[in-house]
């Protein structure tokens, strides 16, 4: 399991998992990285033998595998089993990185897994693919296929299409019994999309589309966004944070202590109700006390995270 001390504070209706069809938005600041929460959900879903699709816009697969190992989850075997899909959103996301493709060692997949829009200017780079495919794909020896890559495209719709295909693929592959597996789609840093030149409106539209998409597959969406107080001065950043919060059912806000650094408390987690939660509450779809909104403190250890009530740190007790 992920972090045992965090578990009781999360929505209780589906025990270690989040209720399907919901959207959890995590916001963090530079001083207190919220990445550790993603590891919690990844390990929980993998342990429960559910599907995880992780889009690494800032982190790479090795990072998640290494941390997963510390948390007792083997992501490599999960990948070969098909439970865990990693989507590389780092190496070829921007148009700056588009020529990377020309130097790739081998075609990533026999079938075109990387979605490139042909009608866009990036087609100038894809003209070389014909020559690339003609070459015999000899050295496809490694059993786990390389992670799927999100390629550059000026329109965010193409990214959505790529993700849609991956999710459909993941859901259909593991649909064996009568009961559909749960699925979680994790975007590890939404702010990257904004930084890479897409407008706030487009990114928000992508989030909304993805939320509806995963709901279809009995899934949950988790996103991470940077919400430093300083960034509120920028209209697009501020708009993104507010817009994502507006879409969310659950919000976890990670930030440092107001009083500065401490050895026993690394920061605080605010568990908040999003508008979606309030809506469902009004409709009577949530149980009483399913997700009490409160603020907790946390401390990150080597392979665990301690979450405790305010004032209950080991320095005090």
């Amino acid at each position, binding site marked *: 399991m992920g972090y045992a001390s965090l578990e009781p504070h999360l929505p209780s209706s589906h025990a270690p998992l989040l209720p399907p069809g919901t959207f959890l938005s995590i916001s963090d600041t*530079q*001083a*207190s990285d919220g990445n550790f929460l993603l*590891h919690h959900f990844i390990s929980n879903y993998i342990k429960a033998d559910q599907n995880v699709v992780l889009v690494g816009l800032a982190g*790479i697969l*090795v*990072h998640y595998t*290494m*941390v997963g190992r*510390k948390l007792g989850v083997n992501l490599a075997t999960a990948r070969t089993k098909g439970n865990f899909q990693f989507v590389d959103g780092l*190496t070829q*996301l*921007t*148009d*700056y*990185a*588009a*020529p*990377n493709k*020309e*130097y*790739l*060692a*081998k075609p990533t997949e026999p079938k075109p897994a990387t979605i490139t829009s042909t009608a866009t*200017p*990036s087609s*100038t780079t894809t003209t070389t693919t014909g020559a690339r495919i003609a070459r015999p794909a000899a*050295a496809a020896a490694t059993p786990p296929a390389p992670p799927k890559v999100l390629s550059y495209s*000026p329109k965010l719709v193409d990214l959505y299409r790529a993700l849609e295909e991956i999710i459909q693929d993941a859901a259909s592959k593991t649909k064996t019994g009568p009961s559909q597996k749960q699925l979680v789609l994790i975007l590890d840093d939404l*702010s*990257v999309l904004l*930084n*890479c*030149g897409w407008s706030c409106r487009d990114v928000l539209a992508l989030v909304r589309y993805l939320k509806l998409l995963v709901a279809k597959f009995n899934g949950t969406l988790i996103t991470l966004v*940077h919400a430093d107080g*300083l*960034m509120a001065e*920028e209209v697009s*950043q501020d708009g993104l944070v507010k817009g994502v919060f507006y879409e969310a059912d659950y919000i976890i806000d990670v930030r*440092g202590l*107001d*009083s*500065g*650094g*401490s*050895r*026993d*408390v*690394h*920061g605080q987690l605010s568990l908040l109700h999003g508008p979606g939660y309030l809506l469902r509450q009004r409709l009577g779809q949530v149980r009483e006390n399913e997700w009490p909104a409160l603020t907790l403190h946390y401390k*990150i*250890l*080597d*392979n665990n995270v301690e979450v405790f009530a*305010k004032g*209950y*740190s*080991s*320095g*005090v007790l």
Partner: protein
Amino acid sequence: MSSFKKRVPSAQASLPAGCRLSAYNGQVLISTGVPSLDDILGGGLPVGTILLIQEDRQTSYGQLLLKYFLRQGIVAGDKCVVVSGDESPEAIVRSLMGIAGEESLESQVQTGVDNRDDEDEERRQRRKKAAAAGGDDEDSEQDRLTIAWRYSGLKKFESGVEARPPAISSRVGKAGSTTEPALTPSQIPFCEQFDLTTRISAKALESADTTLIDSGELQKAVQASDSDLEDDSDDDLAPSASGRNQPDLYRNVLDKIRETLIQGGFSTTLLKDPSAPAPAPGAAGLAERHICRIGINSIASPSWRSKTPHDLYKFLHALRGLLRFSFGAAVITIPAHLYGTIDQRHATDGSTTSPYIHRLEQLCDASVRIESFAGAQTNASSAASAYHGLFHVHKVPVLNALIPSSTKLSVLLDGAAKGSGGPGQSGSGGSSKGVNNLGFKVRRKRFAIETFHLPPEGGVGQRRTSAEPSSGSSSSSLSERKKSSSSTKSSSNPGPVTGSIKKAGSSEERSVQSRARSLGLGNKPSGQVDVHSVPGASGMARKMMGLPPKGIQGAVASGCNTGGSEAGHKHSHGGAGSGANSSLLDF
């Protein structure tokens, strides 16, 4: 026959030259050339990461750090890519510093002077002087502590990090006969000692494997192609002008870097010749492998023209994607002071940067900021003449782990590693951000980052103080704090309480203060916390406001009040321990 054998580290041999493994997460590290900066980053800069250095104003310490990084690369035989726009990259490479003890080798051998640092010489001279005067000196053996003798067994107070002493003797024998590349990879030091008074030797320059990218020249070429493109845009196809073929300085620089990485075989995923069969992983010997060091000087300065601010974001994101899968690391300096509002530029606190710079920091793995006193608007420099400026750590690399390795390993960042883990302190784990304030000194021969502390007033000082007033503390709160320090109690006023808690958080009496802090954070209205301002802070505030120093009654009183007997002991020890430093700071 004994069964004990000396264990020979065999794993180290397979590392590339000048690298070592992180003690915490096994990451391959390279040195920045400055031992104290390596310490802050958790042993060194991890391969595959980007370090952003926010430059100082009016001085060029940021560029100095960049030069250290490149020079260390030349020592290790690494590939160095130098990108610069304002200054020609060749000039940067030519002005690199020399290795300590390399140039003046003969004279050194003759006189027998260990030419390590002038600070050491100062200390030695001082010791001689003190011995001559018959005064007490902590360093000398005969003068033991007579009162607080129990503390004489404690570690000596040190504010900095020492590099491992170089094997000068071995180099003396070697340098005469053979040339430098004769060193085997395992003999190349992780961090060489450099001498700022000397220049890089011509021989080292010749053997250096450098790629120079002059972004100013590129800019011209870009503009030329731009005008060309406009000329024949009518017959050319339209979409190319709006898309990838659009001239773009950052794209050009990135293309050059990518080309260098691929041609040099530094990338693990991108190959020079994609049609050739992929080599088996691990076949190439790691020992022959080198690291590609990318140094970018003053990125985003006015000479770097960009179409949109997103160019730099995209550049960094793509560079990160490139470096993560290659044997390379980048150090980028940026004149961050150009991007900020007036009060942000003049702020002395590390927490204030402009949103633009902040977003850049998100895209880098580590970020530090240099603030030199020469360019500061405040007269804080007069309060701490021993330092040349402050060193702010905004972000340290977190790779393949939940917490950054520097919280476990760094001596400078975290007070816990410093041997202050006395009785009653758990000592487990570290804080997520630096507890210590850091300053830097540039001696005649080297650059060093040390913990920042004010010179003690009146001869008795705290062992470590948090001196730097935050930007949030306005002049009114400063005066409040002054008042509270004179009355040694601020129980009723909630405003200064939180302020002084923050300051107190980085001082020594941790157990007491953490209790106070969490009480204060618990929002308990009845939580009356007797918190006393750290005397260093108020002293600093007094200096900055041009008031005369007030004396140290507050310090002694507060120490005794908060920590009880234990804290009082600490103070006495601090006074004894920092005596050596007090004479160091000519104040």
